[in-house]
């Protein structure tokens, strides 16, 4: 009995530490300015005023769609291209295959700090500043995704591929009709990883996007809070942060197992 308590109490305290702040933030955004700093969640004066101010001041719905568009496109692209390259590297034999594999591993080691500025310059030269393309292109391919697919594909039995080839399928058909349906865990992992990291990405949009109409959600909220448009109205700032958190939390509630498992799997991959 004692053992159980000494196990559960720290776990509970931990749970409070990790979850309560979010709850507090949500309720604080519903309170009038003077009551915000209260620790206790509930109050008689809960209202949605701060949210209406956020919606009036910044195009947050638009930013939500921007984020959705960009993240979805990037995720699809990473899955499609990552699987193609991963397939080529795992099931096809050609000169230079190992060299390319080394190249991919090398790429993963390069700190982004060194390529950040020149990549920005490239985007400027291509005229892609303030465009969706500028946000999407640099993210279209991901070395980790390639490695994950490659690793998974090596476990597909050769016989399946052989029989498909005999049936006259070309490589792309083999990949998408036979292999991918069998690779749901890999697709889920890559999908969730890519989507989450691109949704939360804020440094790159801050650099590449200046026009409010094209900003992603985290970027818009950052500028809103740091730039002073929210004035010193705390409730409004918290409301915008809550709005930013909602989509991912929503997805998380339903897909929580997949989130955790895919992120954990990447760790084990190393």
């Amino acid at each position, binding site marked *: 009995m004692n053992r159980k308590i000494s196990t559960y109490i720290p776990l509970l305290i931990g749970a409070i530490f990790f979850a309560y702040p979010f709850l507090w933030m949500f309720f604080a955004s519903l309170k009038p300015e003077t009551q915000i700093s209260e620790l206790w969640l509930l109050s008689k004066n809960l209202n949605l005023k701060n949210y209406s101010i956020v919606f009036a001041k910044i195009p947050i719905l638009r930013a939500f769609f921007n984020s959705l568009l960009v993240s979805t496109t990037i995720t699809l692209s990473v899955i499609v291209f990552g699987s193609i390259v991963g397939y080529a590297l795992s099931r096809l034999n050609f000169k230079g295959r190992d060299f390319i594999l080394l190249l991919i591993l090398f790429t993963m080691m390069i700190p982004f*700090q*060194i*390529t950040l500025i*020149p990549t920005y310059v490239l985007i400027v030269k291509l005229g892609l500043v303030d465009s969706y393309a500028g946000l999407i292109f640099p993210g279209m391919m991901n070395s980790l995704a390639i490695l994950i697919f490659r690793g998974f594909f090596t476990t597909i039995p050769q016989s399946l591929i052989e029989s498909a080839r005999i049936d006259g399928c070309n490589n792309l058909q083999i990949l998408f009709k036979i292999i991918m349906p069998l690779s749901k865990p890999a697709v889920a992992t890559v999908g969730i990883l890519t989507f989450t990291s691109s949704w939360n990405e804020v440094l790159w949009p801050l650099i590449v996007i200046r026009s409010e109409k094209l900003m992603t959600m985290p970027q818009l909220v950052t500028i809103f809070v*740091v730039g002073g448009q929210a004035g010193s109205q705390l409730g409004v700032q918290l409301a915008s942060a809550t709005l930013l958190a909602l989509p991912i939390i929503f997805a998380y509630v339903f897909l929580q197992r997949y989130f955790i498992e895919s992120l954990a799997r990447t760790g084990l991959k190393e």
Partner: protein
Amino acid sequence: MVKMSKVDSKAGYFMVMPYLIYFAAFIAYPLIFSFILIFHRWNIVTPMEFIGLKNFVRLFKDELFFKSIINTLIFLSIHIPLQIVIALFFANLLNKQIKFRSLFRALYFLPVVVSSVVVTILWQQMYAYETGLINQVLSGFGFKKIPWLVSPEIAMPSIAVMATWKNVGFYIVLFLAGLQSIPNELYEVAEIDGASSFQKFYRITLPLLNPTVVLVIVLSTIGGFSLFIEPYILTGGGPLDSTLSAMLYIYNQAFYFNHMGYAATLGFFFALVILVVVIAQRKFIEREVY
């Protein structure tokens, strides 16, 4: 393996093509361009000016830049150990036979998926001096308020604590997986030999968990070096430049002051620092194992 026909080889090249194009455009070109940019002064709008080694001269006179690197190292030196200790602690608890394990795991993991922006805005309120949550709890218990973000000594550690809160869920999951892969028999044998819990932990758990620990350290280090959005939102680099991270400084140089060439030089130097640290870490940690 069956020897592939020539046709397959060509298909291989085609399929790898997307990556090669991407590599050429977004990795090779930027790398090469950065080597060129380092020797120029440029604000993007007016033509590039060749200035030889002037960027390096400025870099070595730039006390602020070196301070920013040290700040980043301070951050790492607090964040990483804290993370490992806390993650191990909770992973250990979760490894036991308990109910609601996935619920706890899900809650601990929640901050990991939420955007750093949300976490930072939230903690800005937790850390506020007058009305912040933490200080309210402290005053409630009769303690003095702590100037979390306003004191030059405490500001960076405060950010390190916040970063730990955000990321530790991920490492709890990693450690949990690592713990669960340790065969139970090892513990049973040790118990028969009369080992205490402490000995079990020190002699069995830690060594077997070493690969995971290494992984955690490497991932946290690489992540820690890109510290940017937290100081950007919370403190703007202050107080007294104590939270100015290297990335924040480089960002300011490039995008506030438009010194593209100088910023590229800083980025290049910083990347070297990172490589040195990562290699040194690997050597040091690997020595630990043997």
